């Protein structure tokens, strides 16, 4: 596929996003983006019951052609291939960039890898939740832990804390 065709594909997906909208009964809903430049997405992931393989994925978002088109393209591929969670975590950002066309997205790598980064974050969250459930934590306890962890890493003060740092 040449550069023009890759651009046309990205534009088509940005203008007519596939797998758009919330996913009913999603196992995880994870936001990603950069408010500074206005690219925002929320990804919904559903895993096969009791399994380790992605059953379905969808997204909502707004932003530039590359961020939105690449998210739609990636989800299109995932909804066809149904990779395992391990395969998702092992997915290469370089491969994603090559898939989109380095000559097309090379100057906007953060936009091009937004979807994959967000999906990986969702998978990590899902696996953490599983481990917490296996350890006997209730959904409410997991929710509170999640909230505390997010505040710890990204506090409202805007000062991310280093791992292991103690609160004064």
């Amino acid at each position, binding site marked *: 596929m040449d550069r023009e065709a890759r651009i046309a594909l990205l*534009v088509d997906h940005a203008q007519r996003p596939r797998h758009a909208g919330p996913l009913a009964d999603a196992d995880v809903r994870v936001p*990603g983006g950069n*408010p500074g430049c206005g690219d925002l997405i929320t990804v919904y992931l559903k895993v096969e019951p009791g399994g380790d393989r992605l059953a379905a994925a969808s997204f909502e978002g707004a932003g530039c*052609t590359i961020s939105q088109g690449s998210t739609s393209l990636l989800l299109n591929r995932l909804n066809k291939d149904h990779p395992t969670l391990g395969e998702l975590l092992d997915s290469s950002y370089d491969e994603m960039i090559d898939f989109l066309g380095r000559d097309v997205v*090379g100057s*906007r790598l953060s936009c091009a890898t937004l979807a994959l980064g967000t999906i990986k974050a969702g998978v*990590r969250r899902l696996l953490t939740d599983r481990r917490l459930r296996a350890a006997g934590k209730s959904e409410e306890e997991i929710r509170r832990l999640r909230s505390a962890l997010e505040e710890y890493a*990204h506090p409202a003060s*805007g000062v991310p804390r280093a791992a292991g740092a103690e609160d004064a």
Partner: protein
Amino acid sequence: MTTPKAPPSVAPIADRGYAHPEVLVSTDWVADHLDDPAVRLVESDEDVLLYDIGHVPGAVKVDWVADLNDPVIRDYLDRVRFEQLLRSNGIGDDTTVVFYGDRNNWWATYAFWVFRLFGMGRLAVMDGGRARWEEEGRPLVSAVPSYIGGDVRVGERQDRAIRAFREDVLGHVAAQKPLVDVRSPEEYRGERLHMPDYPNEGALRGGHIPGAASVPWARAVNPETHTFRPASELEAIYQQEQGLGRDDDVIAYCRIGERSSHTWFVLTYLLGFAQVRNYDGSWTEWGNSVRAPIERP
């Protein structure tokens, strides 16, 4: 296919009271100069594929990442590369360069600012940017033009007059001179800098430079027309509300200097401030600098 709703009309640029109205041209003016060999239209966007999707006929693309930055260190291109950029886009000594783009022209004013670092005259911005051109139903084409490069030569980049560095800002803080933070109020207050799990493009610390006034850049634009507000409304924002004066030594900043180039443009050319600099290191430098003073409400 739906036709975009035409934007409201605006007063002529010459009637809006700007100090230097010659740096703005209307979409009508651009439409009348599409075939003018002395005019080169330059599109600069946040959404890097917009140009490929369709651009004003005859326009070339200048991308802030690929074309204006040094490829290795955090700085702008040097004179040799800048001359190559001009020649490759058919810009000569006598060419009038008209910038336009998405996001209310924020990268257009950024490109304007970088061109000015090299002392380029004959620069203008298309008022209303790409959004107004599109909403007026004007033509966009995908054909990429080719221009014959001239023998243009420019001087070495001169940063001092309109570009501020970290040391300049530290001096400004110490002297309690005016600083304008043009980011969103959330960024100014030091609230979340970026979304969880997303690569950090921001900084390790949140807040603002001590003493900086918060004036989000987009306040200078009428969101319905996409054009710059008239001088009287800009004066109300920057001079009456914030107490800035035309002779003040002002430094504007944002995250990487793109939004603050817009405010630099407004203060310098639309309001006629004599001494405004853009701190392009902005929060991605300041918020990561060890012991840089930070204020949070």
